[in-house]
């Protein structure tokens, strides 16, 4: 196990090296090429970005690190909430569907879910805004909190910040703004979790110990809770990486649709203004976050399910 973790960390360091090379090339591609000071420049550049010294944004003339602290937490909270929601909903319904795979109703649910996830998330978001915000007036159309609420910037995440103010008006406004983007974002990962959990629990439900439990007269709820849930985790865990990756791509688009002040809007304006410092920072920070998450998930799989390693990870 220790050998595995050490190898994983070595690979992480190597990938980090490749990432800094790419960023360095992005950084110097417009300047004059000077082979003599290339290594020294690279070391200086890497040292400064590792220490969090990202330079100044040409758009807002603010230090990039300051903008990062403002925008990154609100993206992460969106990802976090939709991930939790989709994992809960997708796994529970997936287990129910796997245990009752002959049910016509659940087959219909599967078909509808597969069809829904084929539609692009930005289009679904806009349609939801048109239906629920403009026609039914249930939720606000855009933004992350009402303009009338005064929330000081503490962590950057509007959820935590408005809870810290302890004002029920702020919290209500925040929840109203949060609900629609989170639901729109959750469609895709929820379907993926649903399909994974359904297939895995169907495979497990044909095994002898489940038949034994059924013939003992256990209820389906007990089966799902005690026997199935923990046994399908190893087949879901390696897929979480790719689900998170897709979720982030969707988050950028949904932020643009809902005008949620997160990294999505930050990056797309940086591309429009060719704001290199912002772009490099965003790529560096997000890639590091994703690399660390992937490594953590791999190591978790190794620690908790060592027998699955050869099948799932293929290092």
């Amino acid at each position, binding site marked *: 196990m220790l050998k595995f973790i050490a190898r994983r960390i070595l690979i992480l360091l190597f990938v980090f090296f490749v990432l800094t090379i790419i960023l360095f090339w992005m950084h110097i591609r417009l300047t004059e090429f000077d082979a003599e000071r290339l290594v020294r420049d690279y070391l200086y550049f890497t040292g400064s970005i590792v220490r969090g010294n990202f330079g100044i944004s040409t758009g807002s003339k603010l230090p990039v690190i300051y903008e990062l602290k403002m925008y990154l937490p609100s993206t992460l909270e969106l990802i976090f909430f939709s991930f939790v929601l989709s994992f809960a909903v997708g796994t529970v319904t997936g287990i129910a569907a796997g245990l009752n795979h002959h049910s016509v109703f659940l087959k219909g649910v599967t078909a509808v879910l597969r069809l829904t996830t084929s539609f692009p998330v930005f289009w679904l978001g806009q349609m939801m805004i048109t239906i629920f915000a403009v026609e039914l007036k249930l939720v606000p159309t855009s933004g992350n909190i009402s303009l009338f609420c005064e929330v000081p910037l503490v962590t950057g995440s509007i959820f935590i910040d408005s809870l810290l103010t302890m004002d029920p008006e702020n919290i209500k406004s925040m929840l109203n703004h949060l609900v629609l983007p989170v639901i729109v974002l959750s469609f895709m990962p929820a379907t993926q979790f649903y399909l994974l959990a359904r297939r895995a629990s169907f495979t497990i439900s044909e095994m002898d110990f489940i038949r034994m439990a059924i013939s003992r007269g256990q209820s389906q709820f007990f089966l799902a809770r005690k026997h199935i849930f923990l046994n399908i985790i190893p087949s879901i865990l390696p897929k979480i990486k790719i689900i998170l*990756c897709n979720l982030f791509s969707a988050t950028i688009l949904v932020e643009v649709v809902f005008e949620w002040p997160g990294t999505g809007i930050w990056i797309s304006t940086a591309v429009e203004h060719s704001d290199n410092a912002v772009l490099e920072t965003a790529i560096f920070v997000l890639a590091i976050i994703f690399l660390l998450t992937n490594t953590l998930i791999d190591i978790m799989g190794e620690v908790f399910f060592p027998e699955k390693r050869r099948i799932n990870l293929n290092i």
Partner: protein
Amino acid sequence: MKYQNYDKVLSDRQIFWHFYKKSTADVIGLIVLFLILTVIFVIPYFVNMDPYTQDITKRLLPPSWVDGGELRHFLGTDEFGRDFLSRLLHGGANTISYAFLATISAAVAGIALGIMTGIDRHHVRSSLVRHSFDIIFAAPSILIVFVVVSILSPTLPHTALAIAISLLPRFIHTTYNAVKHEIVKDYIKANNLDGSSYLRLTMECIVPNILSVITINFWEAFAVAVLDISAIGYLGLGAQAPEPEWGSMLISGMDLIYIGNSKAIIPGIAIGITIAAISQVGHGIGRVLTMGEKKWL
């Protein structure tokens, strides 16, 4: 096809179709995909369609079945008075052909790299090659497109290049796993002892046996590529005006959603149905090719 007819030996294609048509949903997906491709790529050759001519007197016409619509413009016109149906078909041709281009180039490069690293006995070297692409795998596809488009310029071919780069690791990893699974088998060892070269081993033994994995992966990647191309068009970094493309048509329709909502709804439905058909066909092909190995629920 009847089983009583024993004098006829079924070809591979007939066997494939026999099992493919057992699922109604997959057959519907195939028919829909065929219709979409026909309408997009064949009809413009026979009907005079002009997606570029502007007619300022006929701006924002609704579809012909709504009051005020004209049959000359079946789906109405956009904000410059251009025929919406022509733009939809030309945009679909752009979206689907560039997505296909991106997928096929990613597939060729990814499969070559996957096989190379798979049959390489040098562990460190093959591990380094595979994991240097991990950074792409870790980064979301939209982010890669942002990088490529900001370095080059925002045009459709550059977007296709970016999407090909983002699809590459997916092909490398699946091909590598399939090759590793295949290469320990005895017939490969026998071929190796007979003195086959690496090229012969690859082309005659490994590629035919991992073809099912590659095919399934190809269809999944194709659906992702269509979605990504339209997403980039939506962000305004793909096709540039006046070139029609489904994603950029969608964003210009979104601006008009409270004036004429058909301009925003129709491209979205077109993208959704295309992706649904592609993934359904991929699902069916995967079901038939892995029959017996895996239960497709």
